[in-house]
C-alpha cells in the first residue's frame, strides 16, 4: 500500500538568517477573516498601552546657571548647539548631545533680555537690562564682544530678520537696527508706553509683531508704513511666535491662561483659542513644521498643541520644574527645550513615546502601523481613555477643577439670564469672540 504523506520543503518555511523574509501565502478574501476589525482593535489597544508605557519624554537637564533662565537661542545651522541667557546676565553655550556647558561668560549687567543668532550662525546678538546690544563672534572664544551698541531706550526683546542683516528690538519703542550701525535705522511708535516682546515673521520677512503692555498686539511692516494694525485683547499677551510654514498665522501666549492663533488678515476674531493651561502662558514656540507649537506657563507645565486644535495633546511637568520662562522647539522637530525659573534648562522629546535613533525599515514600518491603528481607533472609548490620560501634579489638578467650576458657574449664570430675558437679548457668543476687545486701524 502506498501511503501519501504531506511533505513540506523546509526551505520554504525555515529562514536561513534572520533577515530572510519568505513570501507568506495569504488568501485575502474578507469572508475568510470575519474577525478583522476585532483583531485590529485588539492590536490598537495593545499599541496604545505600549505607547503610554514608552512615553518617557524627559531627556535631560542642563544645569549650571546661577539664576533663572531668561532666554534661549537655537543655532540656525547646528542642531547640537544651544545658547542660554540668565537673569544674572550670564550667557552659556551648551552642547546638547553631551549635555555639557561649553562656554559661559558674563555678558550684561542685570538680566539678559534677548538672545539671537544671525542667520549665518557666525555671530550672536545679546541684549540686556543695561541697555546694550552686544555682538559675539562664534568663531573665536573671545571674552569681549566684537561690537557693543548703547541704546538710548530700555530694551526688552530682540528678534532677528531671517534673510537680511537687520534685527528689531523693543522696549519703549520698536526699533529696527542694521548690523554695522550704531543707531536704529527706523523706530516705530504707536501710542503705547512699553512693548515687551517682538518677533519677526520668518516667511514674509518684512513683517513683525510685538506685544504691548496695553494688552495689545501690534503688527508692523518694515518696508514703508511701520505699524499697520493693532488688536487689543482682554488681558496682556506675553509673547508672540509666527508660524514658520504659514506666513499669515501667529500665536500669542496670553496672561489669561490661553493661547490665541491669529490670522493677520482677520485680527478681530482669533482663528483658534488654545486652552488647558492653568496659569499665565509665558512663552510659545512653533515647531519647524508649523503643525504644532509648544508653550510654557507659570503653572509649571509645558504643553504641546496642534496648531489647529483647541486642546493640548501633551503636558510635561516634573516635580522640580518651576515657572517656565522660555520654551523652544528644536529645528529638527524632535526636541523641546525649556528654561525655567529654577535655573535649569530641560530637554524633552517632542513626541513622548518616540523611539530615538536610527530605525530599521521593519521597525519603522511596525511603528507606522501602530500609529495608523491608533488613529484609526482613536474614537473608541477605551483607546481614547488610555491615550489621553495624563497624570498631572496636584496643584494643576486642583486648579483645573477650580477653573472648571468657575466656568460652569459663568455658563450657568449666563444660561439663567438668557432664560429670563427677552429672546435674543442675550446672544450666544462663541469662545473665539470673547477675548478680543477691538481692532485698531
Amino acid at each position, binding site marked *: 500500500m502506498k501511503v501519501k504523506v504531506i511533505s513540506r520543503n523546509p526551505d520554504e518555511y525555515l529562514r536561513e538568517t534572520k533577515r530572510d523574509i519568505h513570501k507568506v501565502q495569504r488568501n*485575502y478574501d474578507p*469572508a475568510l*477573516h*470575519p474577525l*478583522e*476589525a476585532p*483583531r*485590529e482593535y485588539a*492590536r490598537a489597544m495593545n499599541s496604545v498601552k505600549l505607547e503610554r508605557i514608552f512615553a518617557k519624554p524627559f531627556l535631560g537637564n542642563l544645569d549650571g546657571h546661577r539664576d533663572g533662565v531668561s532666554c534661549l537661542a537655537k543655532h540656525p545651522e547646528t*542642531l547640537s548647539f544651544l545658547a542660554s541667557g540668565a537673569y544674572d546676565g550670564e550667557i552659556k553655550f551648551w552642547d546638547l548631545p553631551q549635555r555639557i556647558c561649553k562656554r559661559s561668560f558674563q555678558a550684561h549687567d542685570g538680566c539678559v533680555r534677548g538672545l539671537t543668532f544671525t542667520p549665518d550662525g557666525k555671530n550672536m546678538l545679546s541684549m540686556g537690562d543695561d541697555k546694550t546690544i552686544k555682538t559675539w563672534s562664534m568663531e573665536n572664544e573671545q571674552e569681549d564682544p566684537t561690537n557693543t551698541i548703547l541704546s538710548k531706550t530700555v530694551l526688552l526683546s530682540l528678534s532677528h530678520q531671517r534673510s537680511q542683516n537687520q534685527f528689531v528690538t523693543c522696549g519703549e519703542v520698536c526699533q529696527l537696527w542694521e548690523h554695522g550701525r550704531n543707531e536704529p535705522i527706523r523706530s516705530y511708535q504707536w501710542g503705547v508706553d512699553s512693548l515687551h516682546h517682538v518677533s519677526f515673521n*520668518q*516667511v*514674509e520677512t518684512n*513683517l513683525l509683531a510685538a506685544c504691548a503692555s496695553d494688552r495689545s498686539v501690534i*503688527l508692523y*511692516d518694515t518696508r*514703508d*508704513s*511701520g*505699524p*499697520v*494694525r493693532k488688536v487689543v485683547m482682554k488681558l496682556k499677551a506675553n509673547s508672540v511666535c509666527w508660524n*514658520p*510654514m*504659514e*506666513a*499669515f498665522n501667529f500665536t500669542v501666549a496670553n496672561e489669561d491662561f490661553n493661547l490665541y492663533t491669529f490670522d*493677520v*488678515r482677520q485680527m478681530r476674531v482669533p482663528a483658534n483659542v488654545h486652552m488647558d493651561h492653568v496659569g499665565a502662558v509665558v512663552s510659545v514656540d512653533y515647531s*519647524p*513644521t*508649523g*503643525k504644532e507649537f509648544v508653550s510654557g506657563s507659570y503653572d509649571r507645565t509645558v504643553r504641546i498643541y496642534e496648531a489647529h*486644535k*483647541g*486642546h493640548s495633546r501633551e*503636558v510635561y511637568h516634573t516635580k522640580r520644574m518651576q515657572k517656565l520662562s522660555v520654551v523652544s522647539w528644536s*529645528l*529638527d*522637530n524632535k526636541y523641546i527645550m525649556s528654561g525655567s525659573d529654577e535655573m535649569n534648562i530641560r530637554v524633552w522629546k517632542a513626541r513622548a513615546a518616540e523611539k530615538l535613533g*536610527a530605525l530599521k525599515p521593519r521597525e519603522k*514600518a511596525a511603528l507606522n*502601523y501602530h*500609529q*495608523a491603528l491608533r*488613529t*484609526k481607533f*482613536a*474614537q*473608541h*472609548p*477605551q483607546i481614547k481613555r488610555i491615550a*489621553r490620560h*495624563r*497624570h498631572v501634579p*496636584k496643584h*494643576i*489638578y486642583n486648579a*483645573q477643577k477650580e477653573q472648571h467650576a468657575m466656568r460652569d458657574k459663568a455658563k450657568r449664570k449666563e444660561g439663567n439670564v438668557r432664560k429670563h430675558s427677552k429672546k435674543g437679548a442675550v446672544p450666544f457668543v462663541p469662545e473665539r469672540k470673547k477675548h478680543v476687545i477691538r481692532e485698531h*486701524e
Partner: protein
Amino acid sequence: MTVDMEDFDFNNYSDSDDGGDEEHKRLLTAISKLDKRKRVLPSERREPSLQVSEFHLSKETSSDVNAVHLRDLAKSLSLKASHGEIARKLKATQKKSKTLPKPLEKPAANKIRREVGFENVKEQLSQWDPVVLRNRISDDLVFPLKSSKGTRLNPEEFLSPHQGATELERQIAAVLNDSPSVQKEREEKEEYPLSLEEMIQRRKELARIKAQESYRQAKAHRQNKIKSKKFHRIARREKIRKQIKEFEELQQKDPEAALERLEEIEKERVLERASLRHKSTGQWAKNQAVRAKYDKESRQVLAEQLKISKDLTQKIQADSESSDEELVVEPESAVSDNPWIAQTKSEADVDVFLSGYRKYWNEKAKENQKDTIVGTNADSTPGEKASDTVSVLDVELEDPKAQALLKTAVVSYSEIKQNNENSFAQMNPPDSKPESNSPSKMKKVKKIKKTLMAIKAKAGKKTVTASCGKWEVTPLETQVVNVRSLVDMFDGLHEKITEKAKLKISNLKEQLIPQTNLPRKGKKEKRKTNASDTSNLLEMKRQKVQIDLDEKLDEGSTTNGDFVSELTEKIQLAKSNLSNDKPSTSGVPELDPNKFMKTGPIKLRTALPDEITGGDEALDDSDHEGGEKEKQLTISEAFADDDVVADFSQEKQDAINKSKPEDINLHLPGWGDWGGHNIKPNQRKRKRFIVEMPKPPPRRDENKGNLIINDTEDSAARAHQVSELPFPFTSVKDFEASVRAPISNTFIPESAHRKLIKPSVRTKMGAIISPMDKDVLIKRQQKKL
C-alpha cells in the same frame, strides 16, 4: 464783569472826531477783552530769515487791512500799456490756481497710512493661501520641504572625485584629474559650454534612443516568449525573405559588400548543415512521425522540415559536386515517393475549402440583412414617422448603414408602440385606471424598452408573430440579434433623450426663475463672500479621512482617589440614569402569556455585511416558517408535564433581583463602639453606615409578562463601543466602513498596507527644517524646447 469800564469814556468818544481811529481801536480791544478765550494773534515777521516756521503762517483775515496783497502790487501794471500782457497773464494764472487744501492732522494721516499698509500686507499674505492649504490637506508631507534651500545638494560637490572613500580611490581620482586627456576635455568643455537648450536637447535625444532600444528589447523578449511554432516559422520565413531582398539590393548597390554578405550567409548555411537540425532524427521529428499517420498538420510540418534539409543539402550539390555522395538525396525520387512531401499542397486545399465555406456564410449573412431592410422598406408610414422621430431626436449619424439600422429600430419601435397600445386597450377594461394621456418621450422609450425586453425573453421559448397594421414582425429566429441591437439602440436613445430633457429643463428653469429671485441670490453670494474671503475659495478635501480628535486630555491626579468620592460618583451616576432613561411603557399593550412559544429571536439589522452566514438565513427562515406549527406542537408535547410558565416567572424574578443595586454596607463591627463575641451592634449606628442605593429605573420588561430583557448582557462590550461620531465623518455608515476596512498586512496586500500606514508628516533625522521659502510662490517656467 471784571473789565473795568471806567477807563472807557463814552462821552468822550462821541465828542472827538479827529481821534476817531484811535478811539475805535480802543473800543475794539475793550470788547475783545470781554471775550475770555485767548486769541492767537497773527505773528509778525520782523527779521528777514530763510527759514519760515510752519506755525507762523497765518490765515489771511479780512480784518487784516494792512496786509499787502498781490493785487496791490499788480496795480502798477495797469498804469502802463506795455504791461498789459503781463497783467493779463497774471489774471489768468490767478484764475486757474487754487489754494492747496490744509494737510490732514497727523493722527488721521497716520491712520490712512496704516490702512493702506495693512491692505498691502493682506494682499501680500494672500499669495500664500494655496501653498498653505496644500500643505494643510496634504497626506504626505516630508520635511524639510524640497523648496527649502538648506537641503539642496550641489551635484558637482556631491559627485566630486575627491570624495573617494579609500586611499586608492583618491589616488586614482588624482591621477585621472591630472591626466592630459581629462584636462583637454575639460578645457574643451569650458571652451564650448553647452547652452541649457542644447543640453536639454541632447538629453532628450539620449532619452529617445534609450526608449526605442527598450521598446525593441521588450518586443524581442515578448516574441521570444511566444511558444507557437507556427509563429516562429512565419517570423523566420519573413526574416529570410527580408534578408534576401536586402541582399539583392546590396548586390546592385555594392557588389563587394554583397560578396562578403554572401560569404556570411554561406557560413551560416554550413553551420546549419553541420548541425543535425532539419533531419528527422530528433526527438521532435520522431514524435511528429508517430503522430503523422493521423494528423495532417504534423505531416505538413514534417514535410516542410525535410524540405528544408533537402534544400540545404541541395545547395552543396550545386556548389561543390566533389563533396561526399552519401549525403545527397535525389530530389525527384523523393518528391514522388515521399508521402509527406505530397501533402505540402494540402494547405492550399484547405484554403480553398475554407474560402468556399466563408462565401457561403457571407451570402447567408447578406440574405439576413436584406430581410430586415426589406421589412423596413415594406411599410412607408412608420418609416416616415421614424424619420420624424429621428429628426426630432437630432441623432447625427454619418454612416448610412448605421442610419438604416436606426431607422429599422425606430420603425419597429413605433410599431411595437402601436401594438402595445392596442394590447393595453384590450387589457385595460374601461373601468380601470385610465392611463395618463400625456406620455413624454422618455416614457415611451421606457415602455418600448420593456416590451423589447419582454420579446427578447419570449424569443428563447418560441417565435412570436405580432401583427400590427401592414407590417409583420419577422419570426424571432432571425430577430434575436436584431432585438439585441435594438435594445442597445434604445438604450443609447434613451440616454440621449434624458440628457436633452435635463438640458431643456435646466434651460427652462433658468428662464422661468423670475428676476425677483435674482437679488436674493446675489445677497446670498455676497454673504458667502463676506464669510469666506479668499481662503474658502480654495476649499479642498483631504484624500485620507482620519479621525481628528480635539478633546481635552484626561488629566487626573493620584491623590484624590478616595473611596467616598467614588461612591458618591457612583450614586450620582445611578441617580442620573434613573432620571434619564424612563422608558415610556404607556403605549405598549400587555402580551398574552399563552403566546410565549411564538416569540423567536429577533435579529437586529446592522450595516455589517452578511459574510459569516453567507445568506443562509433566508433558507433557514423558509424552513422555520414551514415547520413552525410542528415545532410548537412538539415543544408543547415535550413540556406537557412541566410548569413552564411558573418556571419562567421565577427566572424573571431572579433576574430582576439580580439587577437591583445593593446597598453598600460600610459598617465595621467595633468601630466607635464595643465589639466582641456577645455584643450586639447597635442597629441605629449600623444603619448610619449603610449607603442606600437609589431605586433602579423601571425595567424595560416590567410590564411585558413573559419577557426578560437583559440590558446588561453585553455591558462588557459596551465599554468598547463608540457612542459619538468622530469629527470628519458625516455618517455612521462611513465611520463603520472606515473601522471595518483593515489596514494590517494580515488582511490586505503588503503594498496597500504600506500605503495605508504611511504617516502624513515625516521628518528626516538630523535635518534642519528651515521656514517656508518664498521660492514656492515663484511659478517656474517650463522650457519649451
